[in-house]
Every structure is written in structure tokens, then in C-alpha cells.
């Protein structure tokens, strides 16, 4: 149980003793100290509050909450999460039309921000704080106190030795004191009637480490929450040769923290000069990317002089607290569309989103300027086009060895004027009809680099000019990320202290008997894992008279 008071501290220390071992110096056993199981029938509100608080901050509650936290984390690893992979959530919703709404209601697609997950860790937080504060008080008091008196019957301790010596009690007491002091032990001497007890204690750093660890957990969580509140995260795809400037309108997606203000965006900009990628050729791992990196030309301020930056996977760009990461890449086929009147209605690269490891990519070309009617295309890009035995095109390799574009064209109204925001990756076909070949089927256009295809019904033509690449960048700001980092370091240091320091009490009782002195040595570890018997043996070896040495 978490000790809200001194008595329970010794209680949990006693509870920690190996089963069957005599209780600690307090002489109380854990059982007697166990708090009442349920609330007594008639508790006044204040008493009830106090009882509830004690329950919340008890060790058993902490244990249960830790279990709950672990269990609650599981669904998020098995069910797709909106924040991790939105498209997987969409797929899941299509595949499980009855289950998905239930899951949605339960927050299963956003487990780690759901009410129940938050409730568990907030309770744990409360329990933790309620645990730390009183323990800190107790610890500070303990540190100032003298090592405790010896239990009445030292011989009951498992680590115990006794012998007689002819040396006088005072002389012997001085030897004991000399032997036990030092080695980071604290000593107290309790003189009594015909006896002297030397108490020694060490290992105070264990509790200090434990407290440091638990405090550090709080610091980490608060730091992470702060970072989330004041930071932001945005994504953008930039075609090689094009630029990006750090303003809201330029992002494809943007998730600000609750307290983030767009004025905080530093006004940097950059151009993606070039993009390099190499793939493994041959072998089982053919097609695996070996390296990729982008050459950026960066300006920290609109009027500052530009510099080059090599952006690669483990090498983000940092400007004024904002970091830019290279998180992906893909192809942007360059097409030129002429409308029915022969005018160039569109020309340029279009981003196609990679669908798999060989970069089969899906994309949409919108041509609002075509006349008499608007044109739209959707289809696939294959960097290394090949035909399967069933005649379906696929990509055999992620590198652009044999670029092929397959498209279906549409004519009509692109729906851009409705005022509703529209994704550039989706073609709204509600106002459009497919361009059909003479057989009446939608006409499949297959293009290689340099090829032009005429569209049916004199709608115009489309030409596949070439292939460019784009990079997917993640831009984010995590203010004060040093706080969780420091917390994490403190946690590890505290943990090491907490696990590897072994508090141990040693007692030596010297009693007069018939002109001789009876020496009793005993030691008690406050945690399991130590070897108090060996320590007692060591002490006894140093103290015993020569002839009694074993």
C-alpha cells in the first residue's frame, strides 16, 4: 500500500519482507495494518472523502490502474487509428458497416485520446501525486532521524550471529562503531541497562531514487501534454523543383495544439531542388529503398540569403523551433491536356499517391480550364509498368524504369464551384460522364513517356511528357521538448537508484554476562534481493576474537 503516513511506510516495508521472515523493526505485520476492506456503514462525508483518497492512493489501486492502462492500450494496436492511419480507418468502416459505428461511439478509432483512456491515466496521475507528496514528507523526516532501535529479539532475524568475548562492553562498542561507520552508513548508539546497541542504516538513496522516478513520470507526462498544447503538426507534399513557405495555406493537412496560434509560424521557406533515391536491385529484397534524400534551398527569413540543406530520413531540417522531416516520396507524372479547341488547358506535374511498395500510384488530373466542358482524369501510374498474365498492368519495380500511365477521362462539371472544399486526390464524378470509345465502353488511355492520345468525341488530347518526383514532408513544432527529455533522464537515474540501492539495517547488541560480553549481530534488508546473511558474516568475521574465527 502506498504510505500516506509513517505507519504505512513501515507497513509496506514489512509487507515487502519475504514471506515468513520476521517483521521489521516496527514489529508490526502487514496484515494488521491492512486498511478496512469496505467503507464502514456510516461515514461522514469528510471521512468518506478521506477514505476514498486513501483507496485511490493505495499501492493496490496503483497496481490495478497500471493493469487497466496496459489493457486499455491494446485495442489501439489492433484496430486502425485515425491519427495513425486515416485511410485504414476508412477501409475498416467499409468492411465492417455494423461494427464500425459501435467502435466509433466507443472511441476505438482514437483510443489514446478517448475518454476512458484519459480517465485511467488521469486517475493514475492523481494516485501518483497523492502518493508522492506524503512519501516525500515521510522521507524527509526519516532522513533526519537516527537509525532505529533494535528489535527485542535479534535472534529472530534470519541473518543473525552471536558469540561471547572477554573484551569489555565499552571497548567492544568502540570497535563496532569504528567498523560500522563509513561506507555511507549512519550510526546511532543506544546505551541501556547492562547493554549497548549500535544501530546502523544505509541505503537512503533507494527511496530518494524511487521518489525521483515517480516525480519524473509526472514531469514527462506534463511536458508531453504541454508540447502537444502549444505545438502543431502539418503535412505537405512538394514536387521536386517547387517550393514551400511556412504559412497555413500551404499545408495539405494541419493539426494545431489547442493553444497553438498561427502567428507562431516562423516565416521560413525552401525549394526542393532535387531528390535522390536508390533501390535495391536483385535478390529477395529487390525494390527496397536504400537511401533517399532531398536537396533543399532554404531561406530562414523571406529576405535572408539561402543555404543548401540535405534533408534525409534521419536528418531533419530545424528552423526557429520548427522541424521538417522527410517522411515519404512518390511520383508526379507531367501531362499536357489540350481541349477540343486545341488550346493547352493544363500542363504540369500532378502528384500521384503511392499505393504499395512498388509505387503503383493513384492520382487525379483536373482540367477546369478546358472548353467547351471541363475535363477530369483518374487512374494509375506505374514506375516500371508490366503486364500480369491476366493482362492487368502492375509495377514491377519502384524505380522509374518504364513509366506507364493508365487513365480514364471524364467530361462535364468538376464541381469546383460549389464552394465546398475538395480534395485534389479525388475526382467528384457526380457531374461528369466518362469519355467512351466507339464500343461504348469507357476508354482506357494507356500512355508511355512522350506519347499522346486523342480523346474520343474530339474532346482533345492528353500527352504524357515525363515523370517528376515529389517528397512528403512533415512539419512540426514541439515547444519545450527539452522538458520531457530531462524528465526521462531523471526517471532513468531515479529508477537505477530505486532498483539497485539496497537499504539495510544492521544491529549489534552488546550485553554483559558474568564479566564477559555477549555480542549479537543481525541485519535486515528492507527489500528482497539482498544478502543480509553474508553481510552479518562479514561483520562477525571482523569482530570475533581470533580463537573463535571459523
Amino acid at each position, binding site marked *: 500500500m502506498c504510505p500516506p503516513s509513517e505507519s504505512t511506510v513501515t507497513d*509496506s516495508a514489512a*509487507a*515487502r519482507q*519475504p*514471506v*515468513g*521472515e520476521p517483521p521489521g523493526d516496527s514489529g508490526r505485520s*502487514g*496484515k494488521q495494518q*491492512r486498511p478496512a476492506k469496505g467503507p464502514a456503514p456510516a461515514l461522514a462525508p469528510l471521512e468518506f472523502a478521506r477514505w476514498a483518497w486513501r483507496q485511490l492512493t493505495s*499501492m*493496490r489501486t*496503483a*497496481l490495478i490502474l*497500471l493493469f487497466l*492502462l*496496459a489493457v486499455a*492500450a*491494446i485495442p*489501439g*494496436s*489492433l484496430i486502425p487509428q485515425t*491519427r*495513425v*492511419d486515416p485511410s485504414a480507418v476508412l477501409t475498416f468502416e467499409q468492411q465492417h458497416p455494423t461494427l464500425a459505428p459501435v467502435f466509433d461511439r466507443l472511441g476505438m478509432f482514437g483510443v489514446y485520446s478517448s475518454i476512458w483512456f484519459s480517465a485511467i491515466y488521469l486517475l493514475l496521475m492523481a494516485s501518483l501525486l497523492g502518493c508522492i507528496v506524503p512519501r516525500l514528507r515521510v522521507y524527509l523526516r526519516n532522513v533526519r532521524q537516527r537509525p532505529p532501535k533494535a528489535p527485542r529479539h535479534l535472534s529472530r532475524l*534470519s*541473518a*543473525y550471529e552471536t558469540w561471547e568475548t572477554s573484551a569489555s562492553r565499552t571497548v567492544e562498542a568502540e570497535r563496532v562503531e569504528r567498523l560500522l561507520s563509513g561506507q555511507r552508513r549512519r550510526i546511532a548508539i543506544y546505551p541501556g541497562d547492562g547493554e549497548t546497541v549500535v544501530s546502523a542504516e544505509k541505503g537512503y538513496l533507494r527511496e530518494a531514487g524511487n521518489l525521483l522516478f515517480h516525480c519524473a513520470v509526472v514531469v514527462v507526462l506534463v511536458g*508531453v501534454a504541454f508540447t502537444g498544447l502549444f505545438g502543431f503538426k502539418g503535412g505537405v507534399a512538394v514536387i521536386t523543383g517547387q517550393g514551400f513557405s511556412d504559412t497555413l495555406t500551404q499545408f495539405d493537412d494541419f493539426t494545431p495544439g489547442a493553444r497553438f496560434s498561427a502567428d507562431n509560424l516562423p516565416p521560413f521557406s525552401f525549394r526542393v531542388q532535387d531528390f535522390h533515391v536508390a533501390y*535495391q536491385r536483385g*535478390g*529477395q*529484397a529487390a525494390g527496397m*529503398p*536504400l537511401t*533517399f534524400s532531398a536537396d533543399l534551398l532554404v531561406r530562414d527569413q523571406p529576405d535572408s540569403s539561402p543555404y543548401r540543406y540535405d534533408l534525409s*530520413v*534521419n536528418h*531533419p531540417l530545424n528552423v526557429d523551433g520548427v*522541424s521538417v*522531416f522527410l*517522411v515519404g516520396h512518390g511520383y508526379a507524372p507531367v501531362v499536357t491536356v489540350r481541349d477540343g479547341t486545341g488550346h493547352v488547358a493544363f500542363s504540369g506535374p500532378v502528384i500521384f499517391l503511392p499505393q504499395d511498395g512498388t509505387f503503383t500510384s493513384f492520382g487525379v488530373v483536373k482540367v477546369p480550364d478546358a472548353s467547351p466542358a471541363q475535363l477530369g482524369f483518374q487512374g494509375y501510374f506505374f514506375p516500371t509498368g508490366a503486364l500480369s498474365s491476366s493482362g492487368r498492368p502492375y509495377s514491377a519495380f519502384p524505380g522509374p524504369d518504364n513509366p506507364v500511365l493508365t487513365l480514364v477521362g471524364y467530361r462535364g462539371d468538376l464541381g469546383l464551384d460549389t464552394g465546398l472544399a475538395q480534395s485534389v486526390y479525388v475526382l467528384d464524378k457526380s457531374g461528369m460522364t466518362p469519355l467512351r470509345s466507339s464500343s461504348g465502353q469507357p476508354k482506357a488511355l494507356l500512355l508511355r513517356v512522350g506519347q499522346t492520345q486523342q480523346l474520343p468525341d474530339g474532346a482533345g488530347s492528353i500527352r504524357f511528357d515525363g515523370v517528376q518526383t515529389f517528397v512528403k514532408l*512533415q512539419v*512540426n513544432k*514541439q515547444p519545450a521538448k527539452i522538458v*520531457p527529455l530531462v524528465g526521462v533522464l531523471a*526517471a*532513468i537515474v531515479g*529508477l*537505477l537508484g530505486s*532498483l*539497485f540501492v539496497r537499504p539495510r539495517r544492521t544491529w549489534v547488541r552488546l550485553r554483559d554476562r558474568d564479566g564477559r560480553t555477549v555480542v549479537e549481530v543481525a541485519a535486515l534488508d528492507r527489500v*528482497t*534481493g539482498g*544478502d543480509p*546473511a*553474508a553481510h*552479518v*558474516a562479514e561483520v562477525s568475521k571482523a569482530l570475533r576474537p581470533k580463537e573463535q574465527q*571459523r
Partner: protein
Amino acid sequence: MTETFAHLSNNAVISATVVFVLAMVAHMLEWAAARQVRSADRDVAVDRVMVGASEVEPGAIPDRAAWTLTEGHGRGGAVDRRLGDGGDVVGTASDEPDDDELERTDRFGRIGFALTVLGVLLLAVGVACRGLAAHRVPWASMYEFSITGCLTASAAYLFLVRRYSVRWLGLFVTAFVVVVLAIADLVLYRPVEPLVPALHSYWLYIHVSAAAIAGGAYTVGALASVLFLLRSRAETRAAADPEQPRTGFLWRVPSAQAIDRVAYRVHAFAFPLWTFAVLCGAIWAQYAWGRFWGWDPKEVWAFITWVAYAAYLHARATVGWQGKAAAYVALLGYSTFLFNFIGINLFGSGLHTYAGV
């Protein structure tokens, strides 16, 4: 060069597997031989805790058998330590067991241990060559997790034998390694492959070595916990029925309490290391993917493992949760660890794409 190292690695791993099989057989014979041997501590009340070193005369051990299983390979000074750790095993022997049988039991144990050392050396060569062939840490596929995990687990065992004389874990450790290596060789094997770019970072080296060592220690900790549960069951039964003969291997390993202590020490070693590994992973994820923590399935399960072992450490300090309950929590923690490396690799998705089979 790559080809040579890859070849060397494959041969070394297969040889190590064979040697571990032999080591396991030797330890099985040790158990079989021990079935006949009566426990030396028959007269020691089971519920009596820890015989202090004071009660045992190191020079005058009446019963060598009681040693052999707790003993490592004799090292000066090991005696005192052993007394402290497995003290109660060396109880006061009443009836002398048959000397020949003891001799045999011990010999099998020694052979098993020697073979284990050889197996670990071979496996170390195999893992190192795999890394040299691929120019990276051997941790990019389930095959590589398996061989590296076996290496750290068996090396952790060797270390513990030196430190705490835990040769009684020999059968468990070798059996585990044999099963995993056999699966690795027969099912999971993949030729050497390079690393995806996200993995090019020195954080990977730190993260992976910490996780691999922590995993090895968790493995040994879990095996010790299993043995602890078996032994405490035997002790409970014996306490209920004092007349029951105390023969067999379970009576030749240290007391439940001493095993528990070893299990705790191993876990206490592994937990901070695992904490460190998870945190290095977070820092590396920041460089690679632009966020510390994204609740990717691998991250979720690393977190679950962490919480489960934190619960284990709490359980040990909670009234009513010590002993068996805590051991079950430790085993739960280990199963979440395994799930992360088996379940998530097989079924999961996410950014940890290298987590392929």
C-alpha cells in the same frame, strides 16, 4: 566478403543449434538422474526461511549433491555467495544419498553447462557474422530477432551462472534456445538483406542493443519465474504432506524463495534497460518520423510490456501480491514482450515496416 560472412553465419548458427540440442539432452539426463536422488534438505522444514550462513559450515558440507545444482563452475569465493543465495538448499543433510548417483547427476550437469558455453560462442560468431555480412545490427527480420534474442538470453544465463550460481536453470534455458533456434533455422530463415533508410541511425544501435539485452534478461527472468512457480507448488504440497518423498529435480534446485530472488534481480536489471530502450526508440522516432511517440503497434506493445513489468515491481511491494501472484505478473509481462515480436510482426502494420517476417 558479404557472401563469406553470410555463409559463416549460417553454419555457425546451425552448429550452435546442434550444440544446444546436446546441451539440452545433457541437462535432461541430469534431471532424469536426479529423480532418484533424495533431497538433502528433507529434514529442513519447508516453511523455514533462509538458513543463515551462520548455520552452515562452508568447509564441512556434508552433501556434495546439494551443491552441484546450485553451484556454478567452481570459483573461489563462490561458496559464501552461494550460501547467501541458495542458503537453504544446503540444509543439514540427514541421510547421505548414493554417491555414484550424485556423481552422475553432477557430471551431466557439467557437460550440459560446458556445451552451453560452446553453443553461446558459436551463436555469438553466427550473430556477429550476420551483422558483418549485412553491415548493420542483425535485427531486421524475425530470423535475426530470434538468433540475437537467443544469444542475449543464453549469454545472460552464463552471466548469472557466474554471478549467482544458477546452473539449475540450464534445462529451461537450453530447451528455450533449442526451440527458438530450430524455428529460426527451419521456418524463419531469410538471406541477408540491407536496411531500409529509416534504420540508418546510431540510435538504432543503442535502441536495438538495449532492447536485445533486456529481452534476453526478460527471457531468463521468465524461465526463473516458471521454475519458481513449480518449486513453490512442490513446497506447498510438501508442507501439506510431510511424509511425501522429496525426490527429483525440483528438490535439488534452490528454495522457491531463493529462485524468486534471482528472478527479481534479473527483472530489476532488465526493467531499466527496457525503459532505456523504449526511450531511445522514441528519440530515434523523432529523428526518423518527426514524432517521439505515435502509438504505432510496436510502440503500443513496448509500452504495454513496460507497464506490465512496472506492475510486477509494484506487485512485489503490495500486500497479498508477493510470491506467486507477482510471478504471474512477470510472465504476463513476458508474454506481452513476445507478442510484440511475434504477433505484431505477423499481423501488425505500421511504421515499423522492418518488422516483417
